[in-house]
């Protein structure tokens, strides 16, 4: 176990290599360039493949090929590039090919800006492309989680034969923090379903997402939905900090959760009963814990760098049992600790809980 200072994007890339990823396909876009640049240097050292594709469309289809062929494969990009990958992601989800997609997101719509943003939440958690499907979406909140969650993302992708996504942002990607890197994974075992060439198998392995007869498609979708139900039952991850005795719980993920954490510690020092609920998986969403907290008469504030995307899931989970307020930033800047502190203070005053 080594402890090193690393930029988030590079920590994530090294974490992927240590998790056994040997195939990276990508296309340049800010603010994720450190990932392909790191992979371009590092892959040859571990007998892996780094390939700069002609577009994000091609990159995700190379991932589909490599993942289908049984390898741990990934791609990374930022928001506009992730939009281009959506066709491929839908095929990958339909064909149940494990792989990891990293979105170091930036502001949109359109060309948007290079500054951090959380406005790809819907795209990440609601499918993103055509059809009824889900990715397992992880939202790292520390440099260490960049390393840990990419490893988990590869494991879960294989366990469920489902694409997984790391939803990060410009700050998480660029910030340097100390991280502990895990040991290199031993060789992975072969997958019985992969396209390797028949090699003596009686039946060929076929990877596809075509259900040309109505029944085929229905069966394919039923199978997918059963899998998603298992994922929802087993893979929800979140951090609850001081939620037990809190009157007001702030819900935030990624970069925003770090700002919120600082504001909350100031408020707690003043004796305010406030807590943090930080989803680590954005899908499956920690709706049960939110529902349970709502039933205990806690109220909520959602802070995110968007016009209100995460807040919709919180409202659904709370289901009218309690009140949900929202504080969002639209201009590609991060909310300051002071802003969040003041927002919470004024909410508490309105409620007479100050």
């Amino acid at each position, binding site marked *: 176990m080594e402890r090193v200072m690393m930029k988030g994007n590079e920590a994530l890339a090294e974490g992927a290599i240590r998790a056994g990823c040997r*195939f990276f*396909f990508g296309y340049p876009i800010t603010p994720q360039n450190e990932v392909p640049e790191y992979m371009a240097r590092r892959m040859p050292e571990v007998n892996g*493949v780094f*390939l700069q*594709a*002609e*577009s994000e*469309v*091609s*990159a995700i*289809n*190379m*991932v*589909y*090929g*490599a*993942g*289908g*062929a*049984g*390898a741990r*494969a990934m791609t990374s990009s930022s928001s506009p590039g992730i939009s281009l990958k959506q*066709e*491929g992601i839908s*095929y990958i989800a339909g*064909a149940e090919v494990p792989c990891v997609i990293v979105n170091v997101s930036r502001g949109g719509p359109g060309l948007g800006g290079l500054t951090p943003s959380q406005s790809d939440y819907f795209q990440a958690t609601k499918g993103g492309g055509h059809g009824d499907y889900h990715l397992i979406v992880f939202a790292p909140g520390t440099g260490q989680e960049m390393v840990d969650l990419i490893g988990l993302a590869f494991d879960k992708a294989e366990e469920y034969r489902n694409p997984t996504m790391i939803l990060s942002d410009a700050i998480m990607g660029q910030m340097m923090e100390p991280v502990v890197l895990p040991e290199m994974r031993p060789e992975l075992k072969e997958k019985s379903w992969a*396209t*390797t*060439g*028949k*090699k*003596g198998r009686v039946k*060929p*392995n*076929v*990877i*596809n*997402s*075509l259900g*040309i007869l109505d029944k085929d498609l229905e069966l394919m979708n039923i199978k997918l939905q059963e899998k998603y139900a298992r994922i929802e039952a087993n893979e929800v991850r979140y951090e609850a900090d001081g939620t037990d005795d809190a009157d007001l719980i702030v819900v935030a993920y990624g970069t925003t959760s770090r700002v919120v954490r600082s504001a909350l510690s100031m408020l707690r020092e003043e004796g305010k009963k406030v807590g943090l609920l930080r989803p680590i998986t954005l899908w499956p969403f920690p709706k049960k814990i939110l529902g349970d907290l709502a039933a205990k008469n806690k109220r909520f504030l959602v802070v995110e760098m968007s016009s209100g995307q995460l807040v919709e899931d919180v409202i659904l989970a709370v289901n009218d049992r309690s009140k949900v307020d929202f504080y969002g930033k639209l201009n590609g800047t991060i909310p300051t600790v002071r802003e969040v502190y003041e927002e919470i203070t004024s909410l508490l005053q309105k409620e007479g809980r100050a």
Partner: protein
Amino acid sequence: MKKVFSFPRAMTDKRTHYCPGCTHGIIHRLVAEAIDDFGIQEKTIGVAPVGCAVLAYDYFDVDFQEAAHGRAPAVATGIKRVHPDSVVFAYQGDGDLASIGAAEIIHAATRGEKITVIFVNNAVYGMTGGQMAPTTLPGQKTTTSPYGRDTATVGYPIRVCELLATLDGPAYLERVSVHDPKHIIKAGAAIRKAFDMQIKGAGFALVEVLSSCPTNWGMTPKDALRWVEEKMIPYYPLGVFRSPEEVTSCDA
């Protein structure tokens, strides 16, 4: 007694869904024969297109991945990089390869990706009902060029072999036709060579096969074959456009 004709081992016994007189089936057979000849069935992986050949994975008895429309060369790239010792081929139509997948084929070719591409040029979008393709001939009527392809407004057909021959990456490029037995034999030899190139590690190999679509051309199978010979070949000359020996021979 010597057996002189049998069903290729690399094909399943499933009945194909191709229309009567469609030459997709002949091309499938040529591919399967090449796989048999080289004894590579156990290490071959195919990539199916979106187009009439979308179900190719049902007809070949080898591992297969179904690609999104036009993306077969990228999918094949991913597979081949993971299994460099396997034999990976993509099977694509003209809409798939020369229109929506133009970027993928050009870049796979220029990278010298060690894959084999079977490119079926039938001058229309077959699966979707006969719309204009990038290879539709000038003046040719299709459902989306009902007055005939007007080059003044929609431009000219793309000659894929000639286009790819401008690149340094490809190892082998040849255009063949399957409109009569003589040409079918030549097409078979070209397809075999395209697999041989990959087996020998020479690099990117593509065979363009001029093919008929009687259904969407509104012709009998016989007339469709004649149309390939009389209309398509003059626009798309047959021959080798790149080979390791740099032989260029045209036989139109």
